[in-house]
């Protein structure tokens, strides 16, 4: 695994928690704190949303420090607005950088989306039109982040509900071009692939066939919600409030069969279940990764 894992920069000796012993993790929720402390057998990694740890002190940093001592940590930003037309928020970038320096996560990721426009922060991952102009802007923003944190960023593919008439290229071409130009890694969110494919009427497998899997350094799986759509067309929402769907597990099996061997994270952000339920989802992800790689994919 170690060659697939971005090591933290610096000349300090690696701690036990620097590299995951099992390449499966779960999103950390403070409500699970006591259950995690009592569960000595969970040897996966934890992922946190960076913005929740941008306060000055108190319990959040106390918990994150303890978590980082015992487990590998992955830092997932949700508010950088990489896809926005505004310049990056310099104060937010500085906060992000200081979290990376303080906690030395083994993975650092952000989204292909925008969330701020002018003075307003919308608290949502809003969609980007795929044009040469937006491509240049996103690359410029990723360069800035990578410069600030001194390491590659992983960019996550979005879940979208609309497409734009002004888009001039496919999402996969857009993401491929970003990875080539900036050297960033990719976070392949398989639930987002399934949600977007369903909402826009294409096949998830066709998307994955066009996706630059060689740049993938982490995979996300999560649950989604099906909305009642009076038009008769299915509408899926990336709600992270349910178990991973069978269709999404099948996509994980597909990419593993195609040779993807990277840390897999189970996300569950609302209607949060008991720790044991989340742990079982992680065990199921681990079982997918344990499948022997077919010889044809080894070549």
């Amino acid at each position, binding site marked *: 695994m170690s060659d697939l894992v971005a090591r933290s920069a610096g000349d300090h000796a690696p701690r036990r928690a620097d590299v995951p012993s099992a390449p499966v993790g779960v999103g950390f929720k403070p409500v699970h704190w006591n259950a995690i402390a009592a569960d000595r057998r969970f040897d996966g990694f934890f992922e946190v949303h960076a*913005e*929740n740890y*941008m*306060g*000055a*002190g*108190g*319990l*959040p*940093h*106390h918990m994150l420090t303890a978590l980082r001592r015992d487990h590998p940590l992955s830092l997932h930003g949700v*508010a950088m*607005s990489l896809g*926005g*037309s*505004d*310049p990056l*928020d*310099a104060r*937010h970038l500085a906060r992000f950088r200081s979290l990376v320096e303080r906690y030395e996560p083994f993975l650092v990721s952000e989204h292909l989306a*925008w*969330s*701020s*426009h*002018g*003075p*307003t*922060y*919308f*608290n*949502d991952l*809003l*969609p980007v*039109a795929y*044009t040469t*102009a*937006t491509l240049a*802007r996103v690359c410029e923003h990723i360069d800035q982040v990578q410069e600030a944190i001194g390491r590659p960023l992983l960019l996550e593919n979005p879940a979208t*509900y*609309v*497409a*734009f*008439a*002004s888009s001039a290229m496919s999402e996969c071409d857009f993401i491929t071009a970003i990875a080539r130009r900036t050297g960033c890694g990719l976070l392949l969110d398989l639930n987002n692939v399934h949600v977007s494919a369903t*909402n826009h*009427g294409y096949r998830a497998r066709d998307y994955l066939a066009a996706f630059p899997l060689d740049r993938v350094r982490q995979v996300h799986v999560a649950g989604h919600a099906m*909305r009642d*759509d*009076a*038009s*008769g*067309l299915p*509408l899926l*929402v990336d709600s992270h409030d349910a178990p991973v769907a069978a269709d999404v597990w099948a996509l994980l099996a597909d990419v593993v069969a195609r040779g993807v061997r990277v840390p897999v994270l189970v996300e569950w952000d609302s209607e949060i279940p008991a720790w044991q339920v989340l742990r079982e989802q992680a065990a199921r992800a681990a079982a997918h990764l344990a499948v022997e790689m077919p010889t044809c994919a080894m070549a």
Partner: protein
Amino acid sequence: MRNGVIPASTPERGAEAAFAAGLLDPTVAAPADVMRRPADPAARRYDVYRNNVTVSLIDALAAIYPAVRRLTGDDFFRAMARSHVRATPPTSPLLFDYGRAFPDYVERYPHAQSLPWLADVARIERAWLDAYHAADAPVVAPDGLAAIPHDRLADVVFVRHPAAYMLRSRYPAGSIFARNRQEGPAQPLVSAAAEDTLVTRPELAVDVRVLPAGGAEFVGALMCGQTLAAAANAAFAAAAAFDLPANLAGMLAAGAFTALRLPESP
């Protein structure tokens, strides 16, 4: 504009502005650039974003103000929060910083005028979250004054702990907060008297306590950097029965101060 830089007016920025315009304003139509699919009004797809934005921000306020929500009921709270979110959306990506204008909004909210103490309960909840995220700092030990020579005690100045807040109310806001911060049946109030509240976080847990008579003048003066003698005088002026040793002990036990200073002798 962030960083003082005004982005150039480009077609991409115009399209983003058109998309942003309707997210918190249901009267604005879905942007023209959104693709229409047969039998699928694009407006419905755009509405997913409107809904995500609005609901997530209402949820953020509900997480910051659980006692206000419990006091008003969920439907009332969400309607009040929705109108606040649309009028005053966040300007920072740190949601624990959001909602600072909400207590004043609650105070002016026409449908909440029969609950005049509601805004003060909201102010305590806002202080609770600020204390929760405040910088870590040591607190003055209960016997911290023992090291001070007796003839200099009157001159001692206290340094406010970064997690310490004092709130005054004309209503029993502290007791209403305490009774409604958790689920389960609430105990009835024993008094309608005005209450001042001290919010602190000496270690990791936030502490909220109602101050005795004169306590607010005392702690308030010390937080402003006045000497112990001046603070005690302010407290006695406000409440003749002010108990100096008990207030001193209570305030140090709560962790309201991080250090003591003895100014140079004149």
